[in-house]
């Protein structure tokens, strides 16, 4: 027969100070764990959710990121007329030659800057990215040195708000609008016309070309044609593959989070162990009485483990709740795959909260098991005699 849960709850209330202190150390551990994981998850999700499965990014063979790639104008002419490329409403091939440059912009309120991606797009570039929509102002017009800035970049960097003027390449560019790209990697970019940008930076080649395939089978054929064309020396990959490859940038944050959480967990579960050993020592006589009343060793073991898990839950639950405050907070770091700023939100997902609670319970079980084992194996007679 199991010992009623009420027994544990009352005990925790009687020793409320110790319970709270132990729970608080578990609270801190869970909080740090969930928030760091939310950081890694936010970065990962912003890259993972980017990309249409039928879009193909065509880059130079051997280049790791768009910024180090180059595609000549002659190659663009070859690519445009490959079979399997979808047509736009006007009946043109659905293709966008793009130019990527990184410029150093100061973060708001800081003198130190960070590299921000400026993407020059062809006329069909925006329609290749259905997640794109304007927030304020209007779309840029070509030939007028106009740019549109993603909302997250506009909030985080100087001179990027609607109506501001940005200085790069040969002069000033006017911000005529802000846009939102639905939490994808494009939310960390500044967009303008590809030929304006190329002209200003004296580039006679594009960085990449993006095309839309008609369907999945056309996609495979299209990729084959490009990889096998010895004139081109180009590498096709779907937009989704390209961004998924970058999610490894979240790995160091994850590893760091695990390392910190693991070390903090050692401290917290040892504290729980101390508390539970003290609890067992103080209640030796009670344990003896319970045994005499007919409660088995197993139910005593279970009861003490449950008590420890309760302490952990008292810490873990608010830990998870407080971590929700971080959800949605925008932050930014440098994506080392592309060497440019990536802005993203902390993402506290239900799965992450569950992990946090499981983590707390595991600390509780580790902290409670040995003291509970000891309680369950107390000699009845000497336990009853103890003071």
């Amino acid at each position, binding site marked *: 027969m199991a010992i009623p849960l009420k027994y544990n709850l009352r005990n925790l209330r009687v020793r409320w100070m110790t319970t709270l202190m132990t729970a*608080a150390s578990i609270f801190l551990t869970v909080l740090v764990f969930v928030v760091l994981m939310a950081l890694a998850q936010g970065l990962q999700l912003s890259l993972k959710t980017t990309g249409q499965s039928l879009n193909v990014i065509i880059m130079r063979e051997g280049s790791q990121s768009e910024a180090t790639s180059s595609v000549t104008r002659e190659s663009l002419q070859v690519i445009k007329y490959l079979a399997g490329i979808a047509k736009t409403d006007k009946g043109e091939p659905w293709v966008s030659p793009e130019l990527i440059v990184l410029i150093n912009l100061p973060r708001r309120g800081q003198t130190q*800057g960070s590299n921000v991606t400026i993407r020059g797009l062809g006329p069909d570039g925006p329609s290749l990215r259905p997640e794109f929509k304007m927030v304020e102002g209007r779309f840029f017009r070509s030939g007028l040195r106009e740019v549109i800035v993603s909302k997250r970049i506009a909030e985080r960097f100087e001179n990027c708000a609607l109506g501001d003027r940005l200085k790069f390449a040969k002069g000033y560019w006017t911000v005529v609008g802000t846009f939102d790209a639905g939490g994808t990697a494009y939310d960390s970019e500044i967009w303008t016309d590809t030929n304006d940008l190329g002209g200003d930076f004296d580039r006679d080649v594009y960085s990449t070309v993006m095309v839309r395939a008609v369907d999945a089978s056309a996609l495979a054929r299209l990729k084959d044609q490009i990889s096998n064309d010895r004139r081109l020396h180009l590498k096709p990959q779907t937009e989704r593959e390209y961004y998924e490859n970058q999610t490894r940038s979240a790995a160091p944050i994850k590893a760091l989070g695990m390392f*910190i959480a693991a070390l903090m967990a050692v401290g917290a579960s040892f504290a729980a162990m101390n508390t539970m050993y003290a609890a067992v020592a103080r209640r030796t006589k009670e344990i003896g009485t319970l045994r005499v009343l007919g409660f088995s060793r197993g139910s005593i073991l279970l009861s003490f483990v449950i008590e420890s898990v309760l302490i952990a839950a008292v810490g873990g639950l608010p830990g998870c709740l407080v971590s929700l405050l971080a959800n949605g907070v925008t932050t930014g770091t440098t994506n080392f795959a592309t060497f440019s700023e990536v802005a993203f939100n902390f993402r506290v997902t239900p799965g992450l909260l569950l992990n946090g609670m499981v983590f707390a319970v595991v600390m509780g079980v580790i902290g409670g098991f040995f003291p509970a084992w000891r309680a369950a194996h107390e000699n009845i007679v000497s336990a009853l005699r103890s003071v």
Partner: protein
Amino acid sequence: MWRLVLKNLLRNKRRVLLTGSSVAVSLFLLSSLAIVYTALGKPLEGTETIPLMMVRRAIGIVFPLPASHGAKIKTVPGVVAVTPLAWFGGYWVDPANTFANFAVDPETIFNVLREGSTIPPDQLEGFKRERVAAVAGRRLVEKYHWKIGDRITLLGSFWGITPELVLRGVFSGGPDDQFYFHYDYLNEALGRPNIVPIYWVRVDRPEDASRVAQAIDDMFRNTDAETRTESISAFLLNFISMLGNVRAIILLIGIAVAFAIFLIVANTMAMSIRERTAEAAVLRALGYQTSHILALFVGESLILTLGGALVGIGGAKFLYDALALSQIGQFVFADMRMRPETLVFCFVVALALGLLASGWPAYRTARGNIAETLRYTG
């Protein structure tokens, strides 16, 4: 008195062991965080006496400078030596063998590095003489078992060329994990675009550094290629700032860890003081002063935290020294080492936590009414 403290401490060995080890683990974490925090805040501080300056395009490091800038920079008063520096980004045989390889000016590179970096004169001559010659740092040579005269081909570079080089010298005492070859070789292989990603500049006296930087930047102001000149450590700082507010996150985690240590020690001390409330009353009845009792408990807490600190912080120092991250790391991890002030800081934190954690319960017990506390049964 101290014997009594020790005896009390060892009364519950398991508790001391558990608390001590959780303090040790937590302080290990805290000192690791402190090391990263200072490394990110003041990279290379104290390791660089005469500043090495770096000139790059103001608009961003991905844009190159014209090769003609080199000669102009050389004319700035206070500048001792200038070398172009092109990050080549190749690997040797296998992508796993990635190391820092640069195209530089062989005539001046060792004048620019100067500080501590030495190469035998005949090897330096060999490096200068041939266009395909290269030199490598001592650690690289040891790692890949290279010998002078070996042919080394650098593969996989974004520059799109694969230079076939001959090792002509080994240098040591400087950036020993780097590899240099001729800038002219690179420039020629690319079809003479005459562009240079960055310049390294050596100035004569530390106090000249900021004046020289200003003079170089002024010289190119309002040209097509404006420059930004700063010391290598300032550049690293800039680089670190690109990571975002990592330092703020580390600081917050550090505070959480410190608070967790406080809770763990306070809990342990509260438990052991509560168990001994009656004993303390007996001691006071025997004539011990309040201050004695206080010292007894606080001393116990201090031994516990400082013991844990010794293991945790000492362990961190030992581990990070042994790993020698400052030797193998690059960029932001270039300067991960336990500095004396970090060491002192961590111990001060441990001391403060030990005092804080035991202060209140010890004070209450030491001051309480003797008759009442004698009756206390727990």
